[in-house]
């Protein structure tokens, strides 16, 4: 009878093989040990009453390597690449594209050297926050609150809120600009997309549509191709990289600050640290985190450089200033010809939607965390009112500002980056204070050389912001104007 037993099992499960798969080396000895162990009668003090009940309660979701591997290809790509690349690439959002395009169109290759310097600064800054995440296991706003007291927290969170609210506004401006490329008025596209983003995020299905937006941003990979096809003078490009030049006219200063602000955006630091913490990365894995941060920053700024080169080789040469999305799109003409507008519109829409979903959520999350408000999408509105209100305010407010009639959308995209650039030093000084606290970081505080680089970045950005504000706001107010 026992022999008959095996019949159905075999037919269902295919040919019966050796219990452990071949090709898993080094375990055969363990298998032998395992085989000798009497199986059913396991002994252990496992008869506490709730153990039985405990088995029946719903578990927290379990994510295994297998699940990651079964996700669609791009998710795999993202899981492998890590937080550094994602955080750095978040810099190439609608505002980033607009800023790089404007820089290329207005100043040709002459700000490329700044981009190279900013890349070093970006690596330094992102590495510091990643290190803090790995060592402390806490998010940035959490660290600020626990170590700097309530007043500093309030100040930092206010700065973060202003910076991020501006950036959210710029994402909606990006949606509006992309819509207009396809002839859709912003009064239709912006409210519609704001409602869609709010609903998708709150209902938890944003993750499912996210991949579509991400795919759309691949359109921006047309820039490197376009840059080559436009046949730029590569000698001039190299000169742009290695020959620093500072001009004191207002437009140049504004674009410089915008370039800094969009490349090292305050929310990227918050994002990077939180994502390192959420991935549970530890000090032992730190060298991977650092590698990921460096490659991420380099790659994303390489794309930025190509955007500048492509626009410089086309629009700057023709003397066209970037006034709207249509003119910015012309930099893609060497590759896409008459479809340049479509390509640019798709990329701009995807990038804007990506950030419009993540950024309000991340901002509400950070601020709620700092102030001790309940913050989770798994809570109901009445359980986490502050969190949901902040999230809603950011989306509704950002969309509403974009709807002001006659607002120059593309200009707005760049101006927001200026705000980010001005507020960046606040966060940089706070980061420097935290990362050098031995009680927090132990042996992982900054080395002197590293501190030199980091302080140089912070002071340079701060000085630049002050000079820019002087040149654009204060001096004109007292009747002095710099050559423009």
């Amino acid at each position, binding site marked *: 009878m026992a022999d008959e037993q095996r019949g159905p099992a075999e037919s269902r499960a295919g040919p019966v093989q050796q219990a452990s798969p071949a090709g898993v080396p080094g375990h055969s000895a363990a298998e032998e*040990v395992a085989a000798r162990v009497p199986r059913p009668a396991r*002994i252990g003090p496992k008869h506490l009453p709730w153990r039985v009940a405990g088995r029946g309660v719903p578990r927290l979701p379990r994510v295994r390597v297998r699940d990651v591997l079964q996700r669609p290809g791009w998710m795999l790509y993202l899981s492998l690449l890590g937080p550094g690349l994602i955080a750095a690439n978040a810099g190439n959002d609608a505002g980033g594209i607009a800023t790089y395009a404007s820089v290329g169109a207005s100043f040709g290759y002459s700000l490329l050297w700044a981009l190279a310097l900013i890349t070093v600064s970006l690596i330094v800054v992102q590495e510091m926050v990643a290190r803090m995440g790995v060592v402390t296991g*806490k998010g940035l706003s*959490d660290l600020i609150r626990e170590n700097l007291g309530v007043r500093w927290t309030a100040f930092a969170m206010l700065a973060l809120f202003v910076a991020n609210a501006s950036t959210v506004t710029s994402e909606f401006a990006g949606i509006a600009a992309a819509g207009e490329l396809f002839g859709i008025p912003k009064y239709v596209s912006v409210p519609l997309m704001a409602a869609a983003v709010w609903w998708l995020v709150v209902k938890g299905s944003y*993750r499912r549509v996210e991949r579509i937006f991400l795919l759309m941003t691949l359109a921006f990979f047309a820039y490197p191709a376009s840059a080559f096809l436009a046949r730029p003078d590569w000698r001039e490009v190299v000169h742009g990289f290695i020959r620093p030049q500072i001009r004191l006219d207002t437009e140049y200063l504004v674009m410089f600050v915008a370039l800094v602000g969009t490349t090292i955006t305050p929310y990227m630091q918050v994002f990077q640290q939180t994502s390192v913490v959420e991935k549970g990365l530890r000090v032992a894995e730190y060298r991977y985190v650092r590698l990921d941060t460096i490659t991420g920053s380099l790659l994303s700024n390489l794309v930025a450089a190509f955007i500048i080169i492509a626009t410089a080789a086309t629009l700057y040469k023709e003397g066209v200033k970037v006034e709207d999305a249509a003119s910015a799109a012309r930099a893609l003409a060497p590759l896409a010809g008459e479809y340049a507008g479509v390509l640019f519109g798709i990329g701009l829409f995807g990038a804007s939607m990506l950030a419009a979903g993540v950024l309000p959520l991340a901002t509400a999350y950070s601020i709620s965390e700092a102030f*001790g408000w*309940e913050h989770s999408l798994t809570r109901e509105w009445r359980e986490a009112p502050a969190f949901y209100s902040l999230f809603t305010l950011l989306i509704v407010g950002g969309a509403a500002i974009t709807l002001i009639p006659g607002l120059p959308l593309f200009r707005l995209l760049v101006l927001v980056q200026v705000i980010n650039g001005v507020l960046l030093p606040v966060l940089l000084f706070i980061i420097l204070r935290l990362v050098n606290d031995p009680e927090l970081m132990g042996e992982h505080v900054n080395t002197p050389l590293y501190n030199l680089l980091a302080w140089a970045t912070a002071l340079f950005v701060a000085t630049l912001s002050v000079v820019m504000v002087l040149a654009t706001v204060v001096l004109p107010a007292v009747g002095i104007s710099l050559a423009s």
Partner: protein
Amino acid sequence: MHEGVSQPAQPLILEGAPELRIHERYLLSRLIGLPLLDQDGDAVGYLSDLIARIEIEGHPQRYPHVTGLVVRPGGRGGPPPERLTGRQMRRPPPGGHAFFARWNVVARLDESGITLRSTRFDLRPFRRREGEVLLAKDVLDKQLVDLRGRRVVRANDVILAAGEPLPGPGAMTAPVGSPDAVTPTIVVLGVDVSTGALLARLLPAALARRIEPWLHRRLIPWDDIEVFTTDAPGVRLRLKHEKLRRLHPADLAALVQQLPRSGGAELLAALDEPLAADTVEALDAPAQAALLADMPPAQAADILEEMAPDEAADALAQLSPAEADKLLGEMEAPEAAEVQSLLTYQEGTAGAIMTTEYVALPRDLTAAQALERLRSMDWLPDLLYYIYVLDKEPDGRLVGVLTLRELIRAHPDVRIEEIMRPEPVTVTAETPAEEVARLIAHYDLVALPVVDADGRLIGVVTVDDAMDVILPPEWKRRLPRLFS
């Protein structure tokens, strides 16, 4: 006399403190920074922290006593005020390190400062004693666990009271810091987690006092609070956290995920092994791996031994081979072998998701004998639904299955092979997990036996593990990780 520092007795509703007669209430945030005055009213330093004994011999105190203070000599950061120089500063050196004083040096506490009985201080550096916390450093602004709300909260303020114990059950039996009756006894009532408390600290003191009547302060009694580690690497509050045992493992797991990494590790370390194992089982696999890798290996091994073998194998599979081997080496041999045998199966097969916890009996037992065997087993699986029937013992082949219900209802003298269902559906260890899930769903099973090439039972796949395989991915993300 206590205006400003103390709270009017009315707005604070203190539930469940019948054993305490309270004279005054104080907010920690307003005590910190008060000058310490000698008998002549001259400042000798400033209060920088209060020490409270929250556990005595491992037992949590309902109203922990303030047992000491940390004093910062001299002025706030800068040079000491004029009057600190000279005679008064003989003992605490100006600008020196913070030092510790016992609470019994305090003679009086009011708005103008803390008057000391003597300015003779023990200048040895402060060392935490068992059960002690620093209220400003470890509690204020930190994330704490609210045991009643089963959630992580942030302490926006700590509420203290000067009072005396009333006789009665549960009255304070702790030794008061001072044998001197004149020293006021200060106890910790609880923490304030309201946004109002935050607002009061943000505003200038005068304004904060004015809005106090409108603030909705929310006190969480200390009895419902658990405190976790400080930021300082290597510094662990040596606390027993006895109160955590009130919570269900599923709630504990949710708390572990909400707390920063160090707090989560401390929470787990405070639980006894069966409870810790159930808590770890309720976490997702990456979180399990991160926690286990951070723990001392011996402790991690103890927890792994207590876990269901399939869960333990899943957790180990997330670690690097070296780390997994180290933990397996620390485990007791039988458990290690069992887990290791599960680890040899490839991802996505029945072997990888099966457990070795099941009950199998030989076919020739009567129902009464079978029940007697079950009763006398030292240990039974959490989920006991099926009893597998083998042709002989030990190492018999699987010939049938019966449910526990059938066994209970059967006539005591009937042999189990007569009531078992022969030819059960089985799979081999190599069967794809999806196929296993499909079979379980198709035949409506609670568990599916896994057999080796000879038809011997090697494990079972339970329905919960099978569901993990086929559950739609978005279901698992109902508890979304925000950034990763």
